[in-house]
C-alpha cells in the first residue's frame, strides 16, 4: 500500500461516513421538515399540483397557525396535555422514587429480579388493557374526564421510571448514606437529606421521560375521552382536525411540529440516561 493510498482511503472513509449520516438524517428528519414547510404554505400553493412543492410559490403565511390557535381547541388540548402531564409526573415520582431507591439498596438476589419484573410491566401494551379499562373507567364515572388519564397513565410511567431510578440510585455510593447514619440520621433520613439532594439529574430524567410518555400516549386517550374539549394533543389532532374529507393540512402539520419538537430538544439532553434504562443492565 502506498502512502498516498492511505490518505485516499481516509478521505474516502470520511466521505462515506458523511453520506451515511446524510441518508439517515434525511430519512428520519424529512417528515418534520416537510411539516415545517407545509405549515407555512398557503392553501392554494399546497393544492396546486403544478407548483414545485419544495418552493414557496406564495410567500410564507401564518394563516394555518392562526386557524390552529383561534379556530380549533388546540390550545385547550395543549393545556390538557400539560395538566395531565404534571399530575402524572407527580404521582410517578411519589411512587417510583421510593421504590427505585428500595430496589437499589436491597441486598440479595431479589433486588435485581424484582426490578426487571417491574420493568417488564412497562411492556404490557395498552392495547391489551384498554378494553377492560374502558369499562372500569365507565364504572368509576370517569368517562370523558382527564382524571381517567391521570389515573391510568402511571401504569406505564411508574414501571419504567422505577427501573430508571433504580439504576440511578445504585450508582450512588453507599458510603454517603453510611456516613450520614453514623452522623445520626436514620436510613430514611439519609435517603431524604443526603441521597435526594444529589439525585437531581436522575429525578429530572424521570420527570422528562414520564412527561414524554404522557404526550405520546394515544390508545387510552382515544378510548376514554370523547368530547373534543377534553382531548390531549396526541388524540385531538388526528381525530378532530379532519372534518369529513377535508384535511386541514397546514394547521395539522403546525400542530404536529409544536407538539413534537420542543419535547425532542429537551429529550436530547437526557438521552444517555434513557439508554441506561433501556439497556436493561446489559451494558455496564
Amino acid at each position, binding site marked *: 500500500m502506498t502512502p498516498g493510498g492511505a490518505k485516499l482511503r481516509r478521505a474516502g472513509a470520511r466521505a462515506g461516513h458523511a453520506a*451515511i449520516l446524510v441518508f*439517515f*438524517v434525511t430519512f*428520519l*428528519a424529512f417528515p*418534520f421538515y*416537510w*411539516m415545517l414547510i407545509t405549515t407555512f404554505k398557503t392553501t392554494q400553493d399546497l393544492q396546486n399540483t403544478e407548483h*414545485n412543492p419544495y418552493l414557496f410559490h406564495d410567500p410564507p403565511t401564518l394563516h394555518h397557525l392562526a386557524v390552529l390557535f383561534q379556530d380549533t381547541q388546540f390550545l385547550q388540548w395543549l393545556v390538557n396535555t400539560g395538566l395531565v402531564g404534571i399530575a402524572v409526573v407527580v404521582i410517578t415520582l411519589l*411512587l417510583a422514587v421510593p*421504590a427505585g431507591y*428500595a*430496589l437499589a439498596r436491597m441486598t440479595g438476589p431479589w433486588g*435485581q*429480579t*424484582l426490578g*426487571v419484573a*417491574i*420493568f*417488564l410491566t412497562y*411492556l404490557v*401494551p395498552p392495547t*391489551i*388493557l*384498554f*378494553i*377492560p379499562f374502558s*369499562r*372500569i373507567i365507565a364504572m368509576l364515572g370517569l368517562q370523558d374526564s382527564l382524571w381517567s388519564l391521570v*389515573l391510568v397513565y402511571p*401504569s406505564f410511567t*411508574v414501571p419504567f421510571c422505577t427501573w430508571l431510578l433504580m439504576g440511578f440510585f445504585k450508582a450512588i455510593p453507599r458510603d454517603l448514606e453510611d456516613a450520614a447514619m453514623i452522623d445520626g440520621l436514620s*436510613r*430514611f*433520613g439519609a435517603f431524604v437529606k443526603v441521597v435526594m439532594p444529589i439525585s437531581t439529574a436522575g429525578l429530572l430524567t424521570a420527570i422528562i421521560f414520564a412527561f414524554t410518555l404522557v404526550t405520546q400516549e*394515544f*390508545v387510552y386517550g*382515544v378510548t376514554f375521552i370523547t368530547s373534543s374539549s377534553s382531548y390531549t*394533543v*396526541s*388524540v385531538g389532532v*388526528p381525530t378532530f382536525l379532519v372534518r369529513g374529507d377535508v384535511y386541514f*393540512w397546514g394547521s*395539522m402539520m403546525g400542530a*404536529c411540529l409544536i*407538539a*413534537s419538537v420542543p*419535547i*425532542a*430538544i429537551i429529550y*436530547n439532553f437526557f*438521552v444517555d440516561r*434513557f439508554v441506561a434504562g*433501556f*439497556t*436493561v*443492565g*446489559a*451494558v*455496564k
Partner: protein
Amino acid sequence: MTEAALKPAKVAGRPPGGFLERLADNDRWLVRAMLAPAILYIVLLVGFPFLLSLWYSLTNVTVASPTMEFVGLENFRRIIESGTFWLSLWNTVVITVVSQFLVIVLAHVLAMALVADFRGKWLVRLLILLPWVAPISLGSIGWLWIFDSIYSIINWTARALGLFDPTFWPIWLGQPELAKASIIIVNVWRITPLATIIILAGLTSIPQDIHDAAAVDGAGFWRHQLQITAPLIMPITLVALLFGIIFTFTDMIVVFVLTRGGPYDTTQVIASWAYFTGIQGGDLAGGAAISLFLFPVLVAVAVMFLWFAKRAEVT
C-alpha cells in the same frame, strides 16, 4: 499496666421514638414500605385489568350492557372463524418481522456512523431522535400527508427525478400491498432511533483496546466487524430487537392513523382490530379476546428479557 476493674456496661436500650422513627431505621421493613405503593399500584392497574381482560374474553360483555354472562370459548370460536382475524394476525406478523429486520440493519449502520465524535453531533442526534420522541399519532399524520393520494411528496420527487414513469403514481394508502408497505415504513421510521441509541450504547461499551488489538492482529474491515464487533454487541442488539418487536407487534396507532385498517380491513393488525371490534363496535368481549392474542408474544419477549437479565448478572 494494671487492669482496671471493668464496670458492667449499661445495656443500650431501644432508640427513642414512635413507630415511624423505628421504621425509618429498620432496613427490612423500610424497604418493603417504600416499595409497596408502587407495587400495589402496578398490581391494581396492570395486573387487575389484565385478569379482567381474560375474564371478558370468556363472557358476552358489551359496552352497553350492564351485565355479562359466561360464554366459555364462544368468542374465541367466533374470532377464529372470522377471516379478518387471520388477516390481521398475518399482517401483524409480517409488519413486525419485516420492519424489525430493517430496523436492526439500519440501526447498526447508523450506530456505527455515530460512534466517532464529529462536529454537529448533538444536532444530528436531535434530528435522528425526532421520530421516536414525537407522539406516534402526530408522526403518523406527517406520513399521512407524505403518502397523500394527490399531493404525495414521494411521488412528486420520484417523478421529478425520473425514477417514476409519468404515468406511475402509486396510491400508497389505497392499495393493500402498498398500504402495508407504508405501515412498515412508518414503523421502521419510528423505531430505528431507539434501536440506534441502544446499539450505540453497546458499541461504545467495547473497550478501545479490543479494537486496537484487532487492528494489530491484522483484521481487515469486514473481519473486524463480523468477527469482533458484531458478536460483542449481540446481547444489546437482542435487547433493541425485543423492544422493537413489542412496540410494533402491539401497536394500533400507525394503522389507525394511516389507513384505519382499510382499504376494507385489509391492513388491520391485531391491536387495531381489537379496537374497532371492542370500542367502536361495542363488542368488548370480542375485542378482549382478540387483544389476548398479543399475549403470547409478550410472554416470549418477557421471558427473554428475564433470561437476559439473569445472564448479565452472572457474568
